[in-house]
């Protein structure tokens, strides 16, 4: 049976147990006129949960784990002569075997690959039978045990509630597992990368040239040597983010001020959803807009002014990214400005200030921590934004602070390196993980600072 069929069968077994157990609990209540501890449904739930949970847990383990086991088993098929070879790479060997197994092999492989593949196919069959048998019998046994436990003194409600609370607690651990998954997947590969490339070169090197195919032809290769200095990438990220913030901060902040302090309810009701519409547009749409509309426009403007503008300029990408983050700044700032107590404004008016003096000298200083935090969050957004830069910023790793030049960013490089077929274990592939690690560290630091600013400098007025 396939995994889906097994899952469906387990579901069915559980439901059947629910009905049987519930019914027999009801019968029990009628026949012996003692009171059951819990209502009869709980006996049904109990049997049902016992049928489902262990069986599904096992099914998931088997479905995920079989491939890992097969891989380690297939290692024994690799002849020692191959294994001791200098070019030997275990991942490639496994890939060779797997390709034969799935029938996507083109060309001929050495004999041991075919032997391993044949054994692998045998394991798949065995594991399928084993999974079917184990999961279904576990479901039947678990449910049966739940059924067996039915008697007036069994506190099935308490048992069911304990299971439910355990399930709720377990799902809250998913968040931790995700974080651990992210950290481990990025950290381990990064450590492997730093074994090949020194940390100092990665952090302070001024040339980024992970030996793209044709890099020599394009003239950017340094005699075929790949260099992994990430400074140009971070400079490019900062440049594009800076352009984006130059657009987004004034527009977002002044919109927020106008909307919260001056605008009538009607204007606010119309303008606010429209601004939020900007936040709902997918980034790939912004990328398309940047590449197809804004970049040519910026270029032709530049040419009219007699400037030399790259066709994939940082200005175009940054401008569009700025449009994207306007709503973040405006809605977050709007919230903090609205949260400033009305009493402060009234006190200021009472002293004779005009409305804009009140806003500038009373409201904004009071809202400043929140505004700073919203700007920091916007920066972290801009740094982590991917699609716009992939589509509109290009891949030329120039170390430049001129927004008219083409630059590249950390995220754009990660995507270019990891999309499509990767070379196994090469420094180039691993470099993407190191970039991702630094990206995570930067965004988390920005968020941490934002949180800190809010908590430390927030004025408690009430």
């Amino acid at each position: 049976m396939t995994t889906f069929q097994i899952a469906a069968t387990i579901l069915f077994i559980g439901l059947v147990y629910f009905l049987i157990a519930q019914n027999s609990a009801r019968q029990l209540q009628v026949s012996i006129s003692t009171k059951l501890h819990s209502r009869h449904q709980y006996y049904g739930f109990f049997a049902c949960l016992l049928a489902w949970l262990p069986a599904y847990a096992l099914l998931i383990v088997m479905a995920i784990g079989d491939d890992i086991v097969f891989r380690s088993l297939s290692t024994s098929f690799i002849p020692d002569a191959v294994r001791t070879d200098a070019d030997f790479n275990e991942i490639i060997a496994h890939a060779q075997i797997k390709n034969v197994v799935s029938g996507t092999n083109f060309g001929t492989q050495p004999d041991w690959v075919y032997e391993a593949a044949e054994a692998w196919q045998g394991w798949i069959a065995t594991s399928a039978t084993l999974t079917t048998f184990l999961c279904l019998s576990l479901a039947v046994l678990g449910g049966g045990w739940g059924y067996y436990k039915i008697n007036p003194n069994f506190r099935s409600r308490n048992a069911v509630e304990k299971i439910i609370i355990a399930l709720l607690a377990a799902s809250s651990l998913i968040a931790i597992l995700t974080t651990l998954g992210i950290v481990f997947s990025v950290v381990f590969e990064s450590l492997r990368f730093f074994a090949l490339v020194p940390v100092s070169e990665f952090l302070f090197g001024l040339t980024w040239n992970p030996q793209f195919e044709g890099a020599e032809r394009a003239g950017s290769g340094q005699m075929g040597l790949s260099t992994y200095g990430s400074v140009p990438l971070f400079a490019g990220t900062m440049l594009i983010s800076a352009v984006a913030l130059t657009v987004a901060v004034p527009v977002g902040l002044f919109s927020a001020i106008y909307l919260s302090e001056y605008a009538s309810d009607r204007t606010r009701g119309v303008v606010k959803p429209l601004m939020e519409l900007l936040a709902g547009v997918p980034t790939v749409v912004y990328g398309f807009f940047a590449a197809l509309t804004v970049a040519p426009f910026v270029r032709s403007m530049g040419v009219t002014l007699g400037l030399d503008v790259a066709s994939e300029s940082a200005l175009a990408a940054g401008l569009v990214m700025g449009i994207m983050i306007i709503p973040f700044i405006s809605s977050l700032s709007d919230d903090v400005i609205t949260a400033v107590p009305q009493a402060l404004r009234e006190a200021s008016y009472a002293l004779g200030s005009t409305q804009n003096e009140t806003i500038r000298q009373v409201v904004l200083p009071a809202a400043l921590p929140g505004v700073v935090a919203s700007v920091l969050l916007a920066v972290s957004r801009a740094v982590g934004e991917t699609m716009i830069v992939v589509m509109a910023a290009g891949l030329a790793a120039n170390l430049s602070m001129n927004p008219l030049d083409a630059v590249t960013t950390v995220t754009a490089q990660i995507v270019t390196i990891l999309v499509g077929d990767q070379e196994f274990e090469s420094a180039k592939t691993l470099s993407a993980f190191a970039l991702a690690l630094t990206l995570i560290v930067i965004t988390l630091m920005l968020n941490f600072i934002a949180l800190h600013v809010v908590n430390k400098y927030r004025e408690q007025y009430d």
Partner: protein
Amino acid sequence: MIDTPKGLVSPTTATERVAASMAKRKKSERNFQLLGRSAIAVALAFLVVLFFSIFSKGLPGFFQYYVEIEVEIDREKLDPTGDLSLQSLYDGDARGVIRSALYAAVDAEGRKNKRAAGKLISAGAEQRLRELVYDDPSLMDTTQTLRFALDDDVDSFLRGFIKRETPENDRRISDKMVEYIDRLQSDGKIVYAFSDYLIFGSASRNPEMAGIYGAFIGSILTLSVCLVLAFPIGVATAIYLEEIAPKNRITEIIEININNLAAVPSVVFGILGLAVFIGIFGMPRSIPLIGGVVLALMTLPTIIISSRAAIRAVPPSVREAALGVGASQVQTIFHHVIPLAMPGMLTGTIIGMAQALGETAPLLMIGMVAFIVDVPGGVTDPGTVLPVQIFMWADFAERMFVQKTSAAIIVLLAFLITMNAAAIIVRKKLERRW
């Protein structure tokens, strides 16, 4: 009498000074308001430009040029084996049947002219003819007026993107083809109609045949996986953290974790999927199942945070009343708190799903960017999704892909706006204020 501090002035002077400064202050007030108004104007202008640029390019993308020609459906040529099987139809000469109809329509004589005429029509025409006779064998050996898509270069020419004035060597269609196009047009055989390929076609390198159907199904499959995982897990986590969890170190760590996850760039979740699901678990690339799992992990923080807010908004009196009549903690939660918090949870989930629908970067990482012609039939078949399809089309050079990309974007935006509107309606209709 107390000493007059320095700078203190008499009330009269003060009033005069204030009056003198009023003009300046009022002016600065006006300027300030103007600044705010122009900021909003700039933001809205960006919005208008963005939508105008997408719609002006995209609306024509819903239509394309077709040619209507009289085709003699010759059974012997189309179905050499004579059993109407797909194999037989593929062995048959559907292309020849269409070509000869086309030559007749433009009176093409000679090899060179015939080649020019043949280039007018899309490569997908033969498949269309095969499907037509496969579905309705009674058409065999009749003469029908059939409608076939024109080649994308011809389409671009008719739209004026390829200029007639351009020298022949510099444009993608020859003078002879231009002559034939003019002839077909004056005969009224070229029609501009709704592009069925866009909606029902799958990925194709031929722009006139490319459509979003496969990507759309892929999006639905991916979103279903995402919803099935993210909604229960998100709601369960929110319930645990709000209602059950003891306030201790572990709970605090989980809360910090969730907030941090909300801040992690989406591309990093793709790296997680690549390293863990594909690397360690050995699952295949490009499948909606992994795409859905990755998007679920990405949307979890959104759902958890909004669900927690919804649960927190349920007044304690409801819980106390339930507990007071003897309900257990779990009964209170499931019978009273969750139903009351459900609108808020649903709103958060719909917004999270809208986010997931528009997300591209993490799916690129797990290989959903592959060129896949088949429509995925299940969550473990390779597939792609709408935003990734848009990303791929945006990279293609043919002019017609610009319209198709914009049209696909309009479809995507329509779905997103519908989802967000649904979230607003759910919130407005069902949410209770206490």
